[in-house]
């Protein structure tokens, strides 16, 4: 079936298209080149100048895995009043701070998103992460597997194992967990907390293993690069939420040794200690350094005011944050000599100096970092705010007077502590398209998504060009997934499953002997039961039987450098 999208205003940064009125053609799920004149068009959408972008891609959202479900179990009162009714088409669910899985999928699609990635999948919890993502319809998904606090890795690093051993282990883990990329959370810190260390700065040693976060970051960053995995090591750095964290962030950026790094939810690691409250913004310095450091990309982790729930692998820092828990209940776990987690409900208040300044810091970072290809729009769902705040965030970035109006409602001392009011910059639609589609697709290595050139998968979102950008991005006119109409006027009209993306770097199978031996001696599960098979993901997700259905997509990996 040949579909024609006529006369839309196209924003396709990966192909350099900035607001040109042009036609797009899609056939058999992909965008195709303009067909010869006279070719029969089966369906046409006359767009009259409406805005066309590729489906949006969220590169960091906690949508799958045990800690998200702990958050759901922890907060029944948060769901109440936000239940979602079933329809002939849609399952019931609930959604406020931590929506249920089906509701999450529907809402993302209704907002014009066609992919979202779980950034913190524990190897030990990979099966459950894929199960939860399998119950998240509509969108493509994938996950980043957490390394850097697992005892196998730390022993190898402390024991000065050969670098190729470590690379083989990283690659093996990506296969076993069916991952897209690798994440580090509080490098060495989650492990250190199990030994009763309460803080771990960039050059401080994990007391048991004697290695530093810097050692871990550089090892994994180099490993990822040499394995040829497109996405750089995805780092939740030291000192999450700590006043003064800006210093370890600056050192992490400048200490990258030219290696590609991605620093996630950097807002939470951008605090100084100036002023009466000993809490200030480090955003200007961090942005200035980032502007000079092209090998580092970031996502923000913007906070929004209201009730949410923080869910992170960072047990050390989340334990520290429990004093701010609101309501006063929380979970911290040590997990399987693999990682940990901390689930702490949080209510960000505009009248709180700290929360108000956190809000401003996120926006300062967005507006002061110049290269939109190196910055992704996230709220670190649900840590900063639930993902459905993205349209509001887009408006804040595109509309300076709206932003300043919001600023004026905040705690007065926080207003005085930020330079936000003086920042004139307003994001353009082209830059928003980069930050929400083209950039994430490129960074993650999603070869045929995030753009509208011939050969791309026909994941397309069409918006009214509404001057109220929040309204515009909240309610897309049409969303297409692989060329099928799935959302109209911000409502799901067809339920689809979405694919799971993985990356499979090469490794020497000899590593499995070492890992199997480790599991046999120390673990409570066997290696063959630990690893997740592709068939399981198919069973969980699309449910297709018999032969390859193409719902697990292995994105290309670069060659392995020795």
């Amino acid at each position: 079936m040949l579909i024609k999208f006529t006369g839309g205003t196209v924003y396709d940064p990966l192909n350099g298209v900035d607001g040109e009125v042009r036609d797009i053609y899609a056939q058999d799920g992909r965008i195709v080149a303009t067909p010869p004149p006279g070719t029969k068009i089966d369906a046409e959408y006359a767009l009259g100048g409406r805005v066309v972008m590729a489906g949006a891609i969220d590169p960091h959202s906690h949508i799958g895995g045990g800690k998200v479900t702990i958050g759901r179990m922890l907060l029944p009162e948060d769901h109440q009043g936000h239940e979602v009714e079933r329809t002939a088409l849609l399952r019931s669910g609930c959604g406020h701070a931590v929506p249920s899985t089906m509701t999450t999928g529907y809402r993302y699609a209704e907002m014009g998103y066609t992919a979202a990635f779980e950034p913190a999948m524990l190897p030990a919890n990979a099966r459950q992460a894929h199960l939860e993502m399998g119950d998240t319809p509509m969108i493509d998904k994938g996950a980043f597997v957490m390394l850097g606090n697992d005892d196998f890795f730390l022993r190898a690093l402390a024991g000065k194992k050969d670098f190729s051993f470590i690379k083989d282990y990283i690659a093996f883990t990506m296969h076993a967990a069916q991952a897209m990329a690798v994440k580090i959370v509080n490098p060495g810190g989650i492990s250190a907390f199990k030994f009763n260390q309460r803080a771990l700065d960039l050059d401080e040693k994990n007391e048991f293993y004697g290695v530093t976060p810097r050692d871990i970051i550089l090892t994994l960053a180099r490993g990822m690069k040499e394995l040829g995995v497109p996405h750089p090591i995805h780092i939740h750095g030291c000192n999450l939420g700590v006043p003064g964290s800006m210093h370890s962030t600056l050192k992490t950026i400048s200490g990258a040794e030219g290696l590609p790094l991605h620093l996630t939810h950097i807002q939470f690691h951008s605090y100084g200690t100036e002023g009466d409250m000993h809490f200030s913004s480090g955003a200007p310095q961090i942005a200035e350094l980032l502007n000079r450091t092209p090998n580092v990309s970031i996502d923000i982790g913007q906070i929004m005011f209201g009730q949410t729930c923080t869910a992170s692998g960072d047990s050390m820092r989340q334990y520290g944050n429990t004093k701010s828990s609101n309501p006063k209940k929380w979970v911290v776990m040590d997990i399987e000599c693999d990682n940990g987690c901390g689930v702490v409900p949080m209510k960000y208040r505009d009248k709180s100096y700290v929360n108000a300044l956190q809000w401003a810091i996120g926006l300062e970072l967005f507006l002061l970092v110049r290269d939109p290809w190196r910055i992704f729009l996230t709220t670190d769902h649900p840590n900063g705010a639930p993902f459905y705040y993205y349209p509001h965030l887009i408006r804040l970035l595109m509309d300076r007077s709206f932003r300043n109006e919001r600023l004026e409602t905040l705690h007065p001392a926080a207003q005085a502590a930020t330079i936000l009011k003086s920042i004139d910059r307003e994001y353009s639609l082209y830059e928003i398209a980069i930050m929400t589609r083209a950039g994430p697709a490129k960074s993650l290595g999603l070869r045929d998504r995030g753009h509208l050139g011939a050969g791309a998968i026909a994941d397309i979102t069409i918006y009214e060009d509404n001057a109220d950008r929040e309204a515009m991005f909240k309610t897309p006119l049409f969303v297409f997934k692989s060329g099928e109409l799935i959302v109209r006027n911000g409502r799901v009209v067809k339920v689809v499953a979405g694919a799971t993306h993985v990356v499979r770097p090469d490794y020497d199978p000899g590593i499995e002997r070492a890992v199997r031996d480790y599991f046999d001696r120390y673990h409570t599960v066997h290696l063959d039961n630990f690893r997740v098979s592709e068939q399981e993901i198919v069973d969980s997700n699309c449910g297709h039987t018999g032969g390859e259905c193409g719902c697990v997509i292995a994105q290309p990996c670069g060659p392995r450098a020795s």
Partner: protein
Amino acid sequence: MSNWSPAQGPGVPPKSNAITDVACPFCGLVCDDLEIVRDESGLHVTKNGCEKAIAGFERKVDGAKPQVDGRDVDLETAIRAATELIRKSALPLYGGLGTDVDGIRAVMALADKSGGVVDHALSEGQYRNFRVLQTTGWIMTTLTEARNRADMFIVVGSDLHKLHPRFYERIVNVEASLFSDTPAKRSVVFLGKGLDQSGVKGQRIGEVLTLGSDLDRVGEVIAALSAEIRGAPMAAETVAGIAIGEIRALAERLRAASYPVFVWAPPSLAFPNADLVVSAVSDLVKELNVKGRAVGLALGGNEGAISAGAVSSWQSGYPLRVSFASGKPDYDFLRYAIPNMLANGEGDLLVWIASFTPDLGPPAAAGKVPSIVLGTPGLKLANTPRVYIPIGTPGADHAGRIIRVDNVVSLPLKNLGRASLPRAADILAAIELAL
């Protein structure tokens, strides 16, 4: 993913196969180091099986037929009859829920479509934990951490050995540790009298202590320990019959320990207000974490309870006891407990799923309403169901997935080819499709 190799040994028929790395679904620990051999007479657990595993795998399940009103019918007829009953029902109750992840997913979809209530047979035990999670939260660990890291285990009022016969063997008395080449002995403290300590033996076991209060007074001992740790010791000579000196000494040990693990099994705390005991343990653990580290480890989770709680939470937002009758998930942990509903005359149909052991039959009170039972052959039934469909046991008769008791690790369950019985998930999906 099975490892097939011909069984060795004399007198073994040539077409036998020894299957290794078998995951056992018959308690919440889901041990996965079992070796099972299959021959014409059925399955035989040849390595690493406890009595529950042997009972579970070696049980005979042949010969059962689907039935409508006690008469044998073919499967399609039974499914049709079940579909009609659900279609006509104003408020179906989906209980038992002894099944695997895919089984629970199918129940949730069907409950959503048919406007029913979802509750697991063992949720009374689970809610001793859930209420604490929902009120105050906790600091917990998982099995591999406890196995490697613990220097002290405090067993809180629970007969772990009975519920999990291999717990001490697999988690406490283990040879190796990630953190020492010559791992030290670990002490084991029993809070509560009369608990089976026979499993606590071996090289790694150091001191074994008992503070033998009545089981339902263990909470008082925990509270007294908390008071000591907090620096506000109780002015009492005994607490629940335990001398205060013993409590003080234990508090000292807890402070000195580097990774004390408090272990309890919610099903074992079978006395009123047991959730307050769990809450007290959670508070004590939090107190200990101010200066040092300490953690909880909750066991139990048999009959697929963990999978049920998890899937229900991620799909509906709520950990079981949720009603879809209004079209939206409506949560009420008191009202929507199926035993309470039956007692209150709510619900007009019981759909019961029990695939693991024959002991998880519907409660006798369920006789008030017609029932559809998807059960493992031999399931103990107090009343004759309107429809009975024999189903396979995940991990023996068909493949599946199950979440382990510590709520992080989930394991694949193998199809060991014991009997060709249908999956609960498939039956439920067929019903949902026909509705």
